[in-house]
């Protein structure tokens, strides 16, 4: 009786010892398929990469790999190119993430205020760009941004403005961010919209009856209830932004003057153009450490409030 109640209270768990081990083992069977894939295609390569980063293996030379300990790491930290690439990535993250989140939220709030029967239409419109592959999206925006014959400067010409979208080292990354907003804001819009639609309307009604205006309702009801969704979106966005590569590669190829050569592109070139595998692995691990640090800091920051 007691045993039955206890097992009922904890489904999947059990109190008696001998069956426990059997249950645990068979429980691991559920985990096994994933663990095999995870081990072979994630953990193993990860450890390999870590090991590789401690060696000097430049596939160029006919000399075999040589252990150099932290040599690659110190080279990276002392390399102007590494810091410049890291700077480019950073600039992208700092510009793209807040703008994407804010714009996504703004659009979602806007759509939510629209009569329900038309909401799906607008949602589809903002999401459509996300379905375009990076090659095509990059090509299109490269055209738009061209100083001489691009669409944007053609539209601004009557005002006498000619923006050096891709030719100025300060502007180039901004242009990439603008393209990224168009290309990726659809995701957050859809997610935020779902989150907004989940908030029971009687919360808003009750608050309105209490005399709260739109802005107050937004601040004190909407935002707090959106918090978990926001946390998730922000974190995933930051993690992804640190790994940006496709857009910069397609639109600017890292130029002008390497101002948009993000870290991932630099790592890729180091590994596959210059064949310096150990060095590339070390830089990848530095990037990992950075992302991990950022994510943990964010989780702590956003959860505390």
């Amino acid at each position, binding site marked *: 009786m007691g045993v039955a109640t206890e097992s009922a209270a904890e489904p999947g768990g059990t109190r008696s010892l001998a069956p426990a081990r059997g249950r645990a083992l068979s429980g691991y069977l559920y985990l096994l398929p994933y663990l095999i894939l995870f081990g072979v295609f994630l953990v193993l390569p990860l450890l390999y990469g870590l090991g590789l980063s401690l060696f000097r293996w430049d596939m160029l030379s006919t000399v075999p790999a040589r252990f150099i300990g932290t040599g690659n790491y110190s080279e990276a930290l002392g390399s102007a190119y590494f810091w410049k690439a890291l700077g480019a990535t950073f600039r992208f993250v700092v510009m793209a993430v807040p703008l994407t989140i804010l714009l996504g939220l703004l659009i979602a709030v806007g759509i939510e205020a629209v009569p329900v029967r038309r909401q799906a239409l607008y949602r589809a419109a903002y999401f459509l760009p996300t379905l375009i592959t990076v090659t095509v999206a990059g090509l299109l925006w490269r055209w738009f941004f061209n100083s001489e014959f691009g669409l944007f400067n053609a539209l601004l010409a009557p005002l006498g403005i000619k923006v050096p979208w891709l030719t100025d080292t300060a502007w180039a990354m901004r242009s990439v961010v603008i393209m990224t907003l168009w290309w990726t804001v659809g995701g957050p819009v859809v997610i935020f919209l779902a989150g907004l639609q989940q908030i029971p309307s009687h919360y808003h009604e009750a608050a309105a009856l209490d005399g709260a205006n739109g802005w107050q309702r937004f601040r004190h009801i909407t935002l707090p209830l959106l918090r978990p969704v926001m946390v998730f979106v922000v974190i995933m966005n930051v993690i992804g932004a640190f790994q940006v590569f496709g857009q910069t590669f397609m639109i600017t190829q890292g130029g002008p003057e390497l101002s948009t050569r993000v870290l991932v592109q630099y790592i890729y070139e180091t590994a*596959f*153009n210059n064949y310096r595998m150990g060095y590339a692995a070390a830089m990848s691990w530095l990037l990992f450490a950075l992302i991990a640090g950022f994510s943990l800091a964010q989780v702590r920051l956003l959860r505390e409030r």
Partner: protein
Amino acid sequence: MRSAARHPGRERGEMSVSRRAFLTGLALPALLAPGCRRSGSRQTTLRFWNGFTGPDGITMLRIVRRFNAQNPDVNVLVQRTDWATYYNKLFVAGLFGRAPEVFVLHASNILRFARARFLHPVDDLISGPDGLDSHDFDANVWQEVEVDGRHYGVPLDVHILGMYFNRQLFRQAGIQSPPAERAGFLEALRRLTRHPAGGPDQWGFVFTNLSSNVYTVMRQYGGAFFTEDFGRCVMNDARNVAALQFCVDLIRRERVAPPPESFDAWVGFLQGKVATAFEGIYMLADLQKQTELDFGGAPVPQIGPEPAVWANSHTLCLRAGMSGAELQAAWRFVRYLSNNSLDWAAGGQIPVRKSLRQTARFHAMPIQSAFARQIPYVSYLPRVTFTFEFQDELNTAIEKALRGSASPQQALDTATANVNAVIARESKSV
């Protein structure tokens, strides 16, 4: 990137949502699911890898199809990727025993691959019973595929830089023929550059491919890049600085060329807004699509004291370690490509077989013939194993100087120092 698969959509810094077409799509691909490659009974299958994308890719594909039709006992499978990825995959494949039987290399990369022992020397095959006449190749091109006394590939073509010019703009400016030397070149550019009030700019010249354009001028000034033994980089040689200064002056002093757009500068020529451009023969296919453009081709004017022009070649290489029937089949294929390089030329290339260039068919290709006149003095990039890093430094220096972020001397000084650091690093590994 797998990362996008594991963290879907993350590569762009975002998650995305989409359709459930997978339900509908399930049936279709199951029918079309890639099956195993059928290998013929007594057929030798050869894998031929190259970086020819775009119209070049189609041209080569058709040539291979004809070979397969004429040689039923050999089946050549063509695989093509863009050049950047191509080299990465080729080298990695070679390292792990998956190199294809026949593949294309740029002459500038032969050194690296030969030293890594990936290539089968072709001297015996050339001089053998079914060989080729090595004297039919241009001597300087044939020399480029030589490493440590042996030749490691059969040159297929030489893609030279040349001057494309807009005939209509030339006529309007009253210029009879394309300029051939410095004074005439500058004079022409001045007459061709116009900035009519309220109308579109017209430029005499535009820098399209920064490295090949400026490298050509540097070579014409006679500058050196490395010491004889390649022990030290001397890119900041005074003559290189002067050459780079000339290019900078075209933009800033003479104002006959616009500041470099990081991309798509070539489109200005296609639009008819630019009168001349230095570009490779491989642009011909793109030009021919512009049906409204009246263009011509001529050798690059000699701006410096020496004649020189940037070039590179596509070389057909054989994987090391082949023998017997496979080697014979591969050689037969390579020989076919070389003998039929006029078909390749028709797609916008220049063959390196002197005998083929003397045919009427080649003479009927005006642009190719004009560019081919420069073959005796083509200048390849310096042969170093760290060729990509060298080119990166050179390109960065050129870009900085042309954009005005640094003086030619400063830019080349920085590049030289960086390349010397690379040399030091490389020598430590030996």
